[in-house]
């Protein structure tokens, strides 16, 4: 048995539609099978509520009495891109405030507008004969704008890799705070309720599909940026009227050390056209798998520690290197459920009808890496590969001898072959000046900052500067020292010319 979207819309109009959430559908298909479920259920609602950085709003401010062609626009001190027609601007969620920095950004301006707050506007221009005004300040509310149209280049990832941290220090990422030594795992997405995971062949989700977006009725514009249908990591470009959104489903966020983002509730209704769609919407958390990646590696291709499905992630902990590690979700499952329930309520009440998927997402498309013509070399290629280590139980005289023999100022300290510290000529000078002739272990720095051989030199250099250190041991995944990178290696790069 098959149905068309037009037939389902007739049912919605007449109030006879059978609509369930994606959570309910999994049980229904388990109970009565896909064939029977396709006969009984017309629409399955999905929902997700998480950080969607690639979000923003197009504004039209209307013309001032003396017209201005805005070239730079600040909304509550957050810059909005204005390389468009005279009084049009685009405010991105992750743009941060000029003065307040990461604590306030485009996402907060968007939330403030929805809440009816006044926004301070400062606009600049170079002035033209047709647009003579050069400076403009005013305050506006959402109702004062002609248009405020949210257009988000990349939303509703089909699924998203989970994050952990294999380094020795806490790191702050867009996946939240990651504790050292794989002590926690964070993940994103709504699993069983995730829109694209409920239509993995992209039959009904595409350009023209009507969606619930931040409380408003929106549409899918088409494929999102970085959309990778080939690998099952598809994304959507979405749009809806900001004036119809509510704070309940739109929240500004700030990730410590990363910046601002927008939490947005998106729900996609999936028409159950046939048994295949019924089967697709019966997906469960355990069917959706993601990689758990080590975010301490400052490279695009971060190593996967393992793969995990959403059932494991949502259970509260997963096994990582033989240890039970607590998980945190960065999307709100409770709010995702509210989105799916609200969309279900609207469809059942006949106030939300389905749109047709007029242009499908491009099949078998993958996301390419950036073409880089001036790439920094890998740490491996410039580090000193001669491994000089000293045992932590050795005396400092032995460490000093090693330094002299090898003309080094830094020596990695090991215990049972693993890196446990670093000792510098400065540490030895201090010990000698103070009259100590302790072991290396007593004089070394214990919280040693490290890097991996595959990281690029610029990333390692940033770490040297951040921690005000002049050398960094290079270690492999098992804490074995495989080299040392010093500030001398880095400065040599520049004296011998560009990155060779």
């Amino acid at each position, binding site marked *: 048995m098959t149905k068309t979207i037009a037939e389902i819309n007739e049912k919605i109009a007449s109030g006879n539609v059978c609509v369930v959430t994606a959570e309910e559908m999994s049980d229904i298909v388990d109970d009565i099978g896909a064939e029977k479920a396709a006969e009984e259920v017309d629409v399955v609602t999905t929902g997700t509520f998480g950080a969607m950085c690639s979000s923003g709003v197009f504004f039209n401010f209307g013309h001032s009495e003396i017209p201005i062609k805005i070239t730079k626009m600040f909304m509550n001190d957050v810059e909005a891109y204005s390389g468009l027609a005279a009084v049009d601007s685009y405010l991105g969620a992750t743009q941060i405030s000029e003065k307040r920095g990461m604590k306030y950004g485009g996402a907060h301006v968007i939330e403030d507008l929805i809440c009816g707050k006044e926004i301070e506007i400062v606009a600049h221009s170079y002035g033209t004969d047709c647009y003579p005004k050069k400076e403009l300040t005013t305050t506006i509310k959402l109702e004062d704008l002609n248009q405020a149209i949210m257009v988000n280049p990349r939303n509703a990832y089909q699924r998203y890799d989970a994050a952990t941290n294999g380094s020795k220090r806490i790191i702050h990422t867009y996946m*939240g705070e990651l504790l050292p030594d794989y002590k926690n795992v964070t993940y994103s997405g709504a699993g069983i309720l995730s829109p694209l995971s409920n239509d993995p062949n992209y039959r009904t989700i595409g350009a023209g599909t009507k969606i619930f977006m931040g409380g408003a009725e929106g549409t899918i514009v088409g494929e999102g940026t970085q959309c990778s249908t080939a690998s099952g990591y598809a994304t959507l470009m979405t749009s809806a009227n900001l004036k119809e959104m509510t704070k309940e489903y739109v929240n500004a966020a700030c990730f410590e050390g990363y910046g601002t983002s927008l939490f947005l509730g998106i729900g996609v209704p999936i028409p159950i056209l046939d048994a295949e769609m019924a089967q697709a919407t019966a997906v469960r958390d355990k069917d959706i798998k993601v990689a758990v990646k080590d975010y301490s590696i400052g490279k695009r291709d971060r190593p996967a520690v393992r793969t995990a499905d959403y059932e494991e992630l949502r259970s509260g902990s997963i096994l990582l290197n033989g240890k039970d590690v607590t*998980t945190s979700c960065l999307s709100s499952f409770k709010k995702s459920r509210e989105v799916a329930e609200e969309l279900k309520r609207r469809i059942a009440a006949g106030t939300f009808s389905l749109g047709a998927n007029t242009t499908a997402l491009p099949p078998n498309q993958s996301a390419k890496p950036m073409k880089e013509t001036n790439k920094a070399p890998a740490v491996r290629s410039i580090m000193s590969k001669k491994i000089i280590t000293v045992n932590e139980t050795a005396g400092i005289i032995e460490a000093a001898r090693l330094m002299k023999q090898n003309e080094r100022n830094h020596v990695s300290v090991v215990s049972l072959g693993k890196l446990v510290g670093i000792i510098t000529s400065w540490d030895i000078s201090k010990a000698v000046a103070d009259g100590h002739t302790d072991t290396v272990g007593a004089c070394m720095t214990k919280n040693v900052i490290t890097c991996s051989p595959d990281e690029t030199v610029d990333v390692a250099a940033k770490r040297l500067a951040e921690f005000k250190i002049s050398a960094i041991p290079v270690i492999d995944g098992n804490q074995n020292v495989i080299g040392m990178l010093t500030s001398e290696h880095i400065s040599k790069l520049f004296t011998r010319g560009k990155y060779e």
Partner: protein
Amino acid sequence: MKLKISFPEERVKSPILSEVILKTGILVSIVSSRVDSKGGEIIIEVIDKSYETIKEEFETRGAAVTFLDTLICRNKEECIECGACISVCPSKVFGYAQDWSLTMDTQKCIRCGLCVDMCPHQALSIEGTECE
């Protein structure tokens, strides 16, 4: 119960905590400590019935004692109940209820502040005393 002991700059060099422990014999767990030359703050945990005695002993030595009934505050207006806080908390304050609401067992809190930095919505605080 957890108490906050605040030391003024001029008393910071005196071994007040040791004196109080030796004099009263009360067992004290140090939850967190932040003391430098300009003064400081120690959070301690003691059994409820020792409160009056320990308060008096600290105060006669020039330290201020505050009973911490709200160890960690959540602003329900801002909280979206994502659960980001769950995995960074070393003392398992946070969890999910059956319906995926966020639950809090605030008495377990050791005020380390990791969740405050983690929360994407700045809904958690350990400074404020006004909680819902």
